[in-house]
Structures are given as structure tokens and as C-alpha cells.
């Protein structure tokens, strides 16, 4: 369940009902900020939108962190394989001269 899309806050409308204009690659819609009243987003912030309500702020830092972790995957493995190729481990076999 739960189709939710990241969107950027363009403008916040203060008033009885906290709403914001958000942008999703050029598509704009007014979104209700009522669920984020404990930590209101500002223009420029990114939020997760579900059925016209902002559910959560998106942390750019955590996103970058995640991508760093993912990109590093396999690099440790590749480095290990390289090292093994140098014959530095004691495999118990004699390497050909």
C-alpha cells in the first residue's frame, strides 16, 4: 500500500490549515502539512507526499549516506580479490615461478 512521492516545498501558506505548494518535477499541488505540525518544513525542504498530505521530511543527509554505503558495496570485495591475486595469502599451494 501507500504510494508516496518525494516533493519539494515551494511555498508555505500559513493560516488555519497549514498547507504548502509542493513541486514534483514540475507538477504542483497544494499539500496539507497538518501531520508535520511538530516540525514544519520550510520552502526548499523535501517531504514525502501521500494522498495530498505531507507524511515526513526527507533527510538529504541520510539519502547521501545510503548511496555512499551502496556504492561501497562490492568495493571491499574487489579489493580483497585484488590482494588475493598478489599471492600474499598463504594458500598452501606453491605458485608457479
Amino acid at each position, binding site marked *: *500500500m*501507500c*504510494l*508516496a*512521492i*518525494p516533493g*519539494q516545498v515551494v511555498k508555505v501558506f500559513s493560516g*488555519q*490549515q497549514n498547507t504548502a505548494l509542493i513541486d*514534483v*518535477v514540475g507538477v504542483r499541488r497544494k499539500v*496539507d502539512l*497538518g*501531520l*508535520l*505540525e*511538530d516540525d514544519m518544513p520550510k520552502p526548499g525542504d*523535501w517531504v*514525502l507526499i*501521500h*494522498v*495530498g*498530505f505531507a*507524511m*515526513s521530511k*526527507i*533527510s*538529504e543527509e*541520510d*539519502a547521501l*549516506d*545510503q*548511496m555512499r*554505503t*551502496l*556504492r561501497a*558495496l*562490492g568495493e571491499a*570485495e574487489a579489493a580483497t580479490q585484488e590482494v588475493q591475486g598478489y599471492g600474499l595469502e598463504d594458500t598452501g599451494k606453491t605458485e608457479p615461478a
Partner: protein
Amino acid sequence: MKFVDEFREPEVITRTAEEIRRLADPNRHYRIMEVCGGHTYAIYRFGLKDLLPANIDLIHGPGCPVCVLPMGRIDDGLAIAQQPDVIFAAFGDMMRVPGTQGSPLEHKARGMDIRIVYSPSDALKLAQSNPEKHVMFFAIGFETTAPSTALTVMRAKSQGVHNFSVFCNHVTIIPAIRAILDSPDMRLDAFIGPGHVSTVIGCRPYEWIAVNEKKPVAVSGFEPLDILQSIVMLLRQLKAEEARIENQYKRVVPWEGNRAALRAIAEVFELRPYFEWRGLGFISQSALRIKDSYAEWDSEQRFHVPGVRVADPKAAQCGEVLKGVLKPHQCKLFGNECTPEHPIGALMVSSEGSCAAYFNYEHRKAAMVTSISSVA
């Protein structure tokens, strides 16, 4: 699209899939359940199964709020809308779900005033611009959607909008997971946890799965890299014989959940003593109803609801597919009597229902002889 495209980067996806292959023990068969229908949809849409080794089985869970809704509830909603001057407003997901007399779309073709809305607040606006009519919003969804419905009801009250009510079919995820784990024919190793429900309830509600059931959970996002990274996390835990809750979807899910959202739910809703889940039977404390303090905005209190129970056709094996005991194509009706065009069970109607997802995206692939490589 920011926060979307990065998590679809092909080279990183390939590398993560390789890591999965490295981690998967060839002597083991892994059964990992993705609870949420949104994950089922994503897995098929991105063709993620093609990237996994044969010994990892992704089992589709019951997290599809449309799929678990008994047919009787749709009949009830439509019965309310039969009243003169009532507008039936619902998400697009509901429009093709069959009741005993047809789906909402079919009722629309017969003249009923049925409108698709993207947001519950749009349904409220509809009421404000149609003062001579009553707008009944057919609310569905797990804890992700319930807070938005709650806020809308609160706004209806504070703005004095009286020609608006909600037919509440919100359900909660934990009882569904418990029902799966209690099921005797279940054998699961780990869970891909629902990402968006968790933005509301946080990660704590899953702790019993790790502590009592000793199964790891990775609360996951919905992009290909999110789901693959979650599988990496689960395989690592299984390898180390650990069982913890991990938050893969950190960029969006707060461990403690969203207090404002939980407050809104507590303000407007209370738990029903029990609720019938299609395919799973009656589950106690598993669904929400509107509190008496908001009775005026509760369709079930404003209108007479027939409340007839409609049994599923005996041949349909929705329950077993919902619990992950059977794969969609193993149901006798799959692809013959039951297709997305003429669905017998709700799993075939909802685009994220396992059967519809499997049918739409997968089953003809299974018949292919040659392997597919990209076209240059």
C-alpha cells in the same frame, strides 16, 4: 526525480544484486515476506525477481488494504451511496473492486454519482462545493492513510461541514503480521517491513517479531535499491544468526514514528473489537472506527448499513495466497476464471494485489524460453 532516480541507478543495482548472490548461502532456501502491497508492486514493476538467485523466494504478504476488504463492505458503502443526493467519493483503487451487484465504476455507469478523489481533503472540498448533497468518503488504507482521514474529519468538524461523512475501513498492520506468523502452514525467515506505514508508527511496533519470533525485519523504502539493500541487510542478519529491526528507509522513517499523525489517529479513531479480513477471517483489534465524539462524520452512524456478510466463492483461494501459502498461479482460478478484467477475488482487482501484479507483470515471462537481455 530527486530521491527517486538515485535509487534506480543501474550500476549500483547490479552491484547490490551481486552482493546478494555472494551473501546467499547456496545450501539454504530463503523465504522472505514483503508485507506491503506497495513492495509487491515495486518488485514486479522493476523486475527485481530477475536479479535474485533462485534460492531466495519473495512471499507476498497481506498489506493490500483493498485486497483484504470483504465484499460485504463494498456493498455496504454502495448501499449508503444509493440514498438520494449522496455522492460516493473514493480513491481510484476502489473503483473496480467488485461488490455483489458490481463495482463502483459499474454503478457509476448505471447512474450513481461516484467520484474519484486523490485525497480525503478533496472529498471534503467536494462536500463544501455541493451543499445540497452528502459526500460519503469510502476510506481505505493502513496506518499510512488513517492520519490523513483523521485530520480531514477534524477539519470537517472545526469548519462545520455537516454534509460529509467517512465510511471507515482503515485496518492496522501488526495484527495482520501476527496472523501470518500464527498460521501453522507458514515458514518465513525474515520480513521486508512496510516503509510508509512506518513513517507513522515507527519501527518499535515490529520489535516483537525480532524478540519473540526471532526473525529479522528491514523496514524498507520502495525504490529498487531500497528493496535490494533491505534484502542484503536481512541476509547478513540471517548469516550472523541475528534477529533485529533495521531501518533501511532512514531518510524518511523516524524510529519513533510521527507523533502528530499518531495524535490525529487517537483523536478521531478507536479500535474495533474485531473486523473481518478477506481471506484471513476475523481478527480482533485490527481495524479502526470513528469515535462517538465524531459520530456525525461517521457514515455508519449517519446511515443504515446493511452489514451483510458475503462469503468468497469457495473455489477462490485468496486466503492462502494472502498468507503466502500459495503463489498466485497456484490458485485454481488464476488466469482462467479470475483475471484483472474479470476478477473473482480482490487480489486480482487491486493493482498491488499479488495476483494482479503477478498476472500483469510476470506470468507470461514465466512462459518465455530464451533469457532476455536489453535491446541496444
